């Protein structure tokens, strides 16, 4: 079918969540005046409207906002601009030359041929089928985010006797939410020996309501043919294998899964963007530009940031990068790789194309560790370091290197910087 309408904006942003809104606004402020945001939902905001709890915005706004309040700030700003917003509109594909095919029920097929694209599709929840839980397939097995949408947006109650598998932040938040809505939460079960969510959520979602958090446990069977009638849980050993003799049955009508998030990159692949197998998101440089020229990515599509404030910051970098691409037509130099060093699982951005600008590094540790120093190295010369009393994998760490920091390291190095590394080392043993 041939698309009837064609738009040729300077920038098309795919997704109207916090990443898309932040990128569109930053691009607008940087001088673009022909921007379109394509959003499949009936309103802007992405996942934020269902995240009714507070804890958003402490870094960006220095205030503690709820998810809807955080979204509202950006929606209000968008409404002051001439940015075109296409709601109820689904992007079906993006070609490597950035031609977008979308569809909605007002215009039918839509073709958008922008000068540049920002990918801001966010992430999805890992489901039962991706964690392989044996048992029947009854109703009542639901992901934490889906339960959150049911309760906070649709006004539906997914169940009354709840077991939560996985202690990610959404699972913890939902343990509290179910309790406040009158359900009984039997417990939160976590296969690892440390919680998946932030300590603050363990305090205010589990401890406050006497909800047990059982570490080194998993669900080994789902019972019930039509509706969940219970689950079997068991201790796991050091290799995360369930110990048969510790199995016990728990009576429940709902199993809520909070077992991780995966960046949503189906469209990125269409566009020919290379995906990092570690983050499951596009390889990006310091401007959040992907391996395809003129295609930028930001927010949880790049890696799961956990904090919306970081999503916003990355999106502002992408938005400014997109504006620069359109207005100045910058060509990329040979990229310098950013490598994960000791106790670092991954670093975003994965490469730096221009050492003459400030770079924000986001990284995650592999295992919890006390009294460490996180540092950025150019070759063997330190660019930036920061001490931490405690680091743990759920917490995203950041390091901002200014142009001056990088220049100084280059001087100390005495030669052209050909690689960067981020590592976490024992503060005592640090060279």
């Amino acid at each position, binding site marked *: 079918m041939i698309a009837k309408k064609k738009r040729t904006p300077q920038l098309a942003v795919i997704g109207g969540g916090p990443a898309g809104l932040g990128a569109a606004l930053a691009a607008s402020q940087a001088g673009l005046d022909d921007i379109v945001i394509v959003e499949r939902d*009936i*309103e*802007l905001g992405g996942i934020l*409207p269902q995240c*009714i*709890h*507070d*804890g958003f915005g*402490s*870094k960006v706004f220095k205030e*503690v906002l*709820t*998810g*809807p*309040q955080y*979204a*509202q700030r950006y*929606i209000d700003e*968008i*409404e002051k601009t001439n940015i075109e*917003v*296409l*709601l*109820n509109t689904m992007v079906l594909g993006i070609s490597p030359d950035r031609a977008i095919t979308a569809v*909605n*029920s*007002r215009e039918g097929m839509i073709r958008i041929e922008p000068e540049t694209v920002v990918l801001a599709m966010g992430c999805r929840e890992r489901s039962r089928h991706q964690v392989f839980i044996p048992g029947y397939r009854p109703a009542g097995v639901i992901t934490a985010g889906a339960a959150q949408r049911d*309760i*906070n*947006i*649709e*006004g539906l109650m997914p169940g009354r006797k709840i077991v939560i598998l996985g202690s990610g932040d959404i699972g913890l938040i939902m343990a509290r939410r179910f309790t*406040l*809505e009158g359900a009984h939460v039997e417990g939160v079960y976590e296969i690892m020996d440390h919680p998946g969510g*932030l*300590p*603050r*959520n*363990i*305090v*205010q979602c589990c401890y*406050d309501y006497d909800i047990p958090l059982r570490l080194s446990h998993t669900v080994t069977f789902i019972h019930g043919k039509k509706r969940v009638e219970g689950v079997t849980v068991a201790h796991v050993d050091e290799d995360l294998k369930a110990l048969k003799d510790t199995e016990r049955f728990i009576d429940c009508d709902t199993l809520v899964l909070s077992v991780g998030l995966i960046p949503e990159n189906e469209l990125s692949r269409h566009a020919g963007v290379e995906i990092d197998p570690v983050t499951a998101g596009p390889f990006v440089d310091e401007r959040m530009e992907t391996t395809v020229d003129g295609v930028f990515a930001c927010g949880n599509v790049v890696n799961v940031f*956990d*904090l919306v404030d970081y999503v916003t910051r990355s999106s502002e970098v992408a938005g400014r990068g997109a504006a620069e691409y359109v207005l100045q037509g910058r060509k990329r130099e040979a990229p310098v790789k950013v490598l994960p060093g000791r106790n670092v699982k991954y670093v975003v951005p994965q490469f730096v194309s221009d050492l003459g600008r400030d770079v924000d590094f986001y990284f995650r540790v592999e295992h919890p560790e006390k009294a460490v120093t996180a540092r950025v190295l150019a070759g063997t010369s330190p660019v930036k370091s920061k001490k931490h*009393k*405690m680091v743990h994998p759920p*917490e995203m760490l950041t390091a901002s290197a200014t142009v001056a920091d990088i220049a100084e390291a280059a001087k100390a190095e005495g030669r052209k910087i050909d690689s960067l590394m981020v590592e976490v080392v024992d503060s005592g043993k640090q060279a």
Partner: protein
Amino acid sequence: MASKHEYTCINCPMSCALELVEENGEVKSVTGAQCKVGEKYAAEEFTDPRRVVTTTVGVRHGLLPLLPVRTTTAIPRRLILDATRRLAEVVVDAPVRNGQVIVPDILGTGVDVIASRDLDTPAGAGVSGVV
């Protein structure tokens, strides 16, 4: 006699590990906080723990059936369940504006419950409207 209490700050994702020292119910010191909010939080957690409450109320004629609401500031922790029960009975009419007071002075705490977002009627909604 002085004794120590450990808390995890809940005010931001830094989740600072706090240590409070008190003597006969009097707070002597708070350590471990990376900002002033944490110091205040530990003292309050010892004497009068408080939480911000967030939930939803019903909406008539809205784009969505529920409106997210929050207490403007924290209320005593022991009142959380009573506050959510009270709010479960509330139904408002769209349109609602972000920050609009939904229930003033909830349970006599002196704290208002406000709307957490704009919520329009389907006709008044959105940049491109609903299909």
